[in-house]
């Protein structure tokens, strides 16, 4: 390694008594991409804020951060500010809160240019802004827009343009795609990489997502408890992790390519303020020994000849592959799915815009769900997958609120709209919801036991029986009966999520609706919950509708998958069939964009066109046409069909699969001919 671009030595960041970063060393070469992974509380954010000099007031930083030989620690605000932009620039997680809502985004991109070059002419700035917009793949017309008028992906492109404006030598991206959909994520990361290469900048990519890091980083550093615990070339780290935490993390991540079993890391990530002496991971480490709890192991090279792989573990070389060993695959003896529990037929849901008292719907309405049919049979888990705005939530909400809409919802064969009121209430009770945000879903003033008992109270279960049922439900979800007296805030995020699952299961419902079951949970905690749900599926015959954007979750849990896009179902198939041979171009794009925690796998690709044009969905034809690669390559006649007729779900040669596309539902043996095909 020549002269390092960034050289951090023994960096400490403290917030009062709490140490968020405890002695981090990190070197980056010019043009290198270093991935920084870790769970919440690992100190990633405090570390990067320290590097960029953006720590909040009240934080103290000691150690050394050298950027191109300039020491940043101890510099005054003015001097560091002069470096921010041309020296180091940052891409934030949430561009909407970073971009000033009162300024046009073009002005915002020009701002750093003027800040660092007072003599820059208006024309010169305009030319550079044009260049930058081109670089990040935005039409130059978007310069006139305000941040709130752009989609999430476009906003983050603006964020990248702002960061790249002064051609920084080091780019720091803090969870740059965490709030984005997968297809957009792949596009934005590509843009980030292209922009970086254009100026030869180094990139410090911070992410909790091992897939993202595996796809884009040359070298990976794993943070835990405020320290870097392992650091190696990406290939090396993913292939042969040494530190037990890294091993655990990799075994806990669901892989969309295969439904292998997950190994949850027991316990919860450490809290910075309450760190015991010794290795921060020792309390959760299955291989921990006495010395691990006494002194913190240094970050040392793995071998004498291999200085690129650094590990902080006392037991390096002693422990083999059997820490967090993967259990044998499940061999469930599951009965074939029974009769339908939930049948949604031809559902249409529209949301009216402009909801005032007098003027509801004056500004038009949005078709959220258009002709959607989903069936869940007893004993099967069906996943409803789609990106934000696909209509998943609108579909599910409809089961519970039941405002009159075209289409029918049947529970246990009975139409909810037709059923008499007490009957309808009884039917609804057989369907239980596990909401996405457990913190919001639990009343903070109710004990866990009371919360779980509530559905039983509504079902008029006698009090003595309730107590036993609550204890049983808690055990089922892997909590202790004694947790019933705790309040939600006394539990960790993963435990709270388990409580909501227990509350849904306590009445032995026919169907459980899981809304984004592991969203927002740390990898090691999410693995535990996914395994729990898989256990319930195999042992209790759990019937569930899982609503999620996370395809790895789907692969792990679901028997059947229904893919939604812009309000319509585009493909439905068994999980195995869908993942091995996706048919619809949207499904293919979705699968291709999912990051895989393996650097040797092909990098996630964005095959669907980016949504950088503000296209109103065509209501007459296929709504995906403007972004569809098939449409783009089709001849004019075929395009006319796409534009005028919405494709409906049709059968394919695979009896479990239906696809809604004019051009790809044709199976190889020409079982179904698209009508227009003969004319071409």
């Amino acid at each position, binding site marked *: 390694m020549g002269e390092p671009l960034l050289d951090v030595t023994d960096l400490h960041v403290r917030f009062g008594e709490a140490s968020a970063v405890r002695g981090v060393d990190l070197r980056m070469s010019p043009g290198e991409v270093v991935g920084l992974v870790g769970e919440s509380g690992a100190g990633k954010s405090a570390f990067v804020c320290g590097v*960029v000099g*953006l720590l909040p007031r009240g934080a103290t930083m000691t150690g050394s951060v050298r950027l191109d030989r300039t020491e940043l620690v101890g510099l005054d*605000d*003015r001097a560091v*500010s*002069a470096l*921010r*932009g*041309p020296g180091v*620039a*940052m891409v*934030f997680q*949430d561009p909407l*809160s*970073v*971009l*000033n*809502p*009162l300024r046009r985004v073009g002005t915002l991109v020009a*701002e*750093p240019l003027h*800040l*660092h070059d007072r003599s820059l002419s208006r024309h010169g700035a305009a030319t550079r802004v044009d260049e930058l917009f081109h670089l990040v793949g935005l039409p130059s017309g978007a310069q006139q827009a*305000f941040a*709130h008028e752009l989609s999430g992906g476009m906003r983050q492109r603006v964020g990248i343009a*702002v*960061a790249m*404006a*002064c051609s920084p030598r080091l780019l720091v991206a803090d969870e740059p795609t965490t709030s984005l959909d997968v297809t957009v994520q792949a596009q934005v990361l590509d843009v980030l990489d292209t922009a970086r290469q254009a100026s030869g900048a180094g990139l410090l990519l911070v992410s909790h997502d091992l897939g993202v890091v595996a796809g884009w980083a040359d070298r990976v550093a794993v943070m835990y408890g405020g320290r870097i615990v392992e650091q190696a070339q990406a290939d090396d780290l993913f292939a042969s992790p040494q530190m037990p935490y890294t091993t655990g993390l990799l075994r806990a991540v669901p892989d969309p390519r295969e439904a292998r079993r997950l190994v949850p890391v027991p316990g919860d990530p450490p809290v910075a303020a309450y760190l015991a002496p010794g290795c921060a991971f020792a309390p959760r480490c299955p291989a921990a020994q006495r010395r691990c709890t006494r002194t913190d192991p240094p970050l040392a090279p793995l071998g004498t000849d291999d200085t690129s792989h650094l590990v902080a573990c006392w037991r390096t070389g002693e422990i083999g592959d059997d820490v967090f060993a993967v259990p044998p695959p499940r061999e469930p003896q599951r009965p074939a799915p029974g009769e339908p529990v939930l049948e949604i037929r031809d559902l249409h849901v529209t949301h009216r815009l402009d909801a005032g008292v007098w003027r509801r719907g004056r500004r038009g309405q949005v078709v959220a769900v258009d002709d959607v049919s989903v069936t869940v049979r007893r004993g099967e888990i069906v996943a409803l997958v789609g990106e934000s705005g696909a209509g998943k939530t609108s579909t599910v909400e409809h089961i519970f609120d039941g405002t009159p809409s075209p289409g029918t919802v049947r529970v246990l064969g009975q139409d909810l709209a037709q059923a008499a009121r007490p009957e309808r209430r009884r039917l609804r009770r057989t369907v239980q919801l596990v909401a996405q945000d457990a913190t919001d879903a639990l009343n903070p003033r109710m004990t866990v036991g009371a919360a779980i008992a509530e559905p039983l109270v509504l079902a008029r279960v006698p009090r003595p029986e309730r107590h036993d049922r609550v204890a049983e439900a808690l055990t089922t979800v892997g909590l202790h009966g004694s947790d019933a007296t705790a309040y939600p805030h006394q539990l960790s995020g993963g435990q709270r999520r388990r409580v909501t699952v227990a509350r849904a299961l306590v009445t032995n419902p026919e169907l459980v609706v899981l809304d984004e079951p592991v969203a927002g949970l740390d990898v090691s905690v999410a693995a535990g919950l996914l395994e729990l749900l898989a256990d319930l599926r195999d042992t209790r015959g759990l019937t569930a509708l899982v609503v999620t954007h996370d395809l790895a979750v789907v692969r792990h849990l679901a028997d059947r998958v229904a893919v939604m896009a812009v309000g319509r179902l585009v493909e439905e198939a068994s999980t195995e069939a869908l993942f091995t041979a996706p048919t619809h171009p949207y499904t293919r794009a979705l699968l291709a964009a999912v990051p895989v925690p393996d650097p040797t796998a092909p990098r996630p690709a964005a095959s669907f066109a980016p949504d950088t044009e503000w296209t109103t969905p065509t209501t007459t034809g296929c709504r995906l046409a403007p972004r569809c690669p098939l449409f783009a390559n089709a001849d004019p006649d075929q395009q006319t069909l796409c534009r005028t007729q919405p494709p409906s779900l049709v059968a394919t040669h695979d009896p479990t699969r239906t696809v809604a596309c004019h051009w790809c539902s044709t199976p190889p043996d020409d079982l179904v001919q698209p009508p227009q095909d003969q004319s071409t």
Partner: protein
Amino acid sequence: MLRYLARRAANALVLALAATCLGYVLASVALDPLVRFRGNNPPVPDEQIRHALAITGTDPNTPLASRLWSWLSGLAHGSLGTSVDNRPVTSEIAERAGTSLQLLVLGTVLGVGLGVLVGVVGAVRQHRWFDRVTTQGSFVVLATPTFVVAVLLMVGATRLNEAAGRQVIRFTGQYTPGHEGWAAVTDRASHLVLPTLALVIGLVAAFSRYQRAAMLDVLGTDLVRGARAMGHTQRSALVRHGVRVAMVPMSTLAVYTAGMVLAGATITELAFSWHGMGEYLLLAAQRGDVNAAAGTVACTAVLVLVLGMVADVLYAWLDPRVRL
């Protein structure tokens, strides 16, 4: 935008009419137009009372509905009736609104401006000495009745005048009769000092609190961090990005506050013997002057509705996220 304004205006018209009618009915029911004829010795002749009541249209023997109707038809011709001292209410209100306007312009501009400044500095230096002093100070001011503030100011002014040996600050009425030209201007200015100050102190106390809260909200977002990441120093990030965003919601408050001063900073006017709108309403109630009271209510109603529209348009102009 224009369609929105037209719809808003139509709504406002209906509301204003309703408020005006209710105001008149309330004034007629609550006020006794005969109050100033009672207790006179010798008693005022019935003939004269009836004549006076006929001029103001407030004869209690006429049904309330028909009194309201005749007042409304007067309103349609732009007249708010006659007050008990035989002056048209319309011209009286116009004159007094002018007086209130003098107070308003300086008072609100200074009060809101200083309040915003104090709030911003307080938020940026949260929990430091400046923030603590201004926070305690505003609570003291907000908890002190306006007339106490006014009296304290007058005491201070008297001391100042004594120390200076001449009348630097005058605080009774709006002007001293007999001055002309430049002397009249300085005289009015010296009369304006204390009432404006009384108003400003209260406004600064209130607005510094609002602005401090709004600013802290903005500081909690990544906006300032983002600006610093571009290369702004902490100070310039705050000024260029933070303050502007935090000031947008203040626009609505400022507009309404200005309007309320125009409608009558009653206590301040009374304390400094200014003849503004607030004093007029009070006088009307004392003298049983139904037309004056109803006229004041009508003006206030129109003012509030117009200001609501102004505030909304201003907000939409300042914040592109708002669509009218």
